[in-house]
């Protein structure tokens, strides 16, 4: 009896440990995938002995959500031409998400290299010049999300201030006395 009870207890403990490990692993995988899917990454590697290395992950959704907490009067204005182009930019972003991986633009010169590509579903911008190496990677859907946030901003932000009036031309100096 006692042996059977001990066996049952051991089995239950083993099952709980296995469940805990599985749940932890699952959570780690989901978190990593969410991170990869939703986070833009900016890496800057300055060249030279005192070069700075930066690695900045930016959750795209969080950046957009944070914008909604800015008071309306403090929102930056969006250029009307940019605002008008945003629906088209969203369509382009959707099409970029659908297309297969490829190098889209590549510029190569003696001292600089720039590449914009789609790699593993992410939009990647890479720059290598004499001063630094820069790598920016956007998750799928990020461009569309950015365009969507800008559209929201264009609808919310106050209109751009009117252009300042032109300064009045100074009055002509009076002619000196005695001149013709």
């Amino acid at each position, binding site marked *: 009896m006692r042996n059977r009870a001990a066996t049952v207890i051991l089995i239950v403990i083993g099952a709980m440990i296995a469940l805990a490990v599985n749940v932890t692993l699952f959570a780690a995988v989901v978190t990593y995938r969410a991170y990869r899917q939703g986070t833009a990454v900016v890496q800057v590697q300055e060249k030279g002995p005192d070069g700075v290395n930066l690695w900045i992950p930016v959750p795209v959704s969080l950046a957009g959500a944070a914008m909604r907490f800015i008071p309306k009067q403090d929102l930056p204005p969006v250029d009307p031409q940019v605002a008008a182009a945003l629906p088209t930019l969203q369509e382009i972003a959707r099409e970029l998400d659908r297309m297969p991986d490829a190098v*889209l633009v590549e*510029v190569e010169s003696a001292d600089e290299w720039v590449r914009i590509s789609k790699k593993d579903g992410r939009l990647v911008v890479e720059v290598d010049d004499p001063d630094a190496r820069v790598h920016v990677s956007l998750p799928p859907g990020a461009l569309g999300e950015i365009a969507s946030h800008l559209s929201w901003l264009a609808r919310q932000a106050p209109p751009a201030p009117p252009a300042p009036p032109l300064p009045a031309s100074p009055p002509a100096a009076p002619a000196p006395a005695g001149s013709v």
Partner: protein
Amino acid sequence: MKKPVLIVPAVAALLALPALASSADSWLHVKVQEKGAKASTVRVNLPLSVIEKAAPLAGNEWQKHAKIEAGDHGMSKDQLKAMWAAVRDSEDAEFVRVEGTDENVHVAKLKGKLVIHVDDKGSKNEKVAIELPMEVADALLSGPGDQLDFAAAIEALKSHGHGQFVSVNDDDSTVRIWIDGHNGTE
């Protein structure tokens, strides 16, 4: 009785496959290669589906900035359309042949394309070859008023199939623009 019902849609799907493949997989490539010691190379590879979505932006910019010039004279879109209609409705023919010490120019209509070859033997030693499918130019000029219909031109490019459209070769650089089914760079 079931067999004919299955065969007809299967045959229709097989016949549609090439069209689907060409429209879904067509890529526009641009390669600019400078010559010289500090030469640079620019490569652009974009699927026609993305360019099609960007066509309205191109149209807006055209409206703001572009104008058609022929030699030293400006030309309205209606005048260009009338000239183009005359070229389009003619038989395959050679319209211009200039053979000079400085320059050879050849403009012709051949097998549904407008073919322009220029061999400029001047200071830059420039060779230009343009082969523009007639239906693409038709589509471009089909917009209302002064507008150019870039979206229609892209549609015409998609259905025309693959090939090289522009090649420019001079002492400073070479430029090629072509469409094929590959997403790789050259």
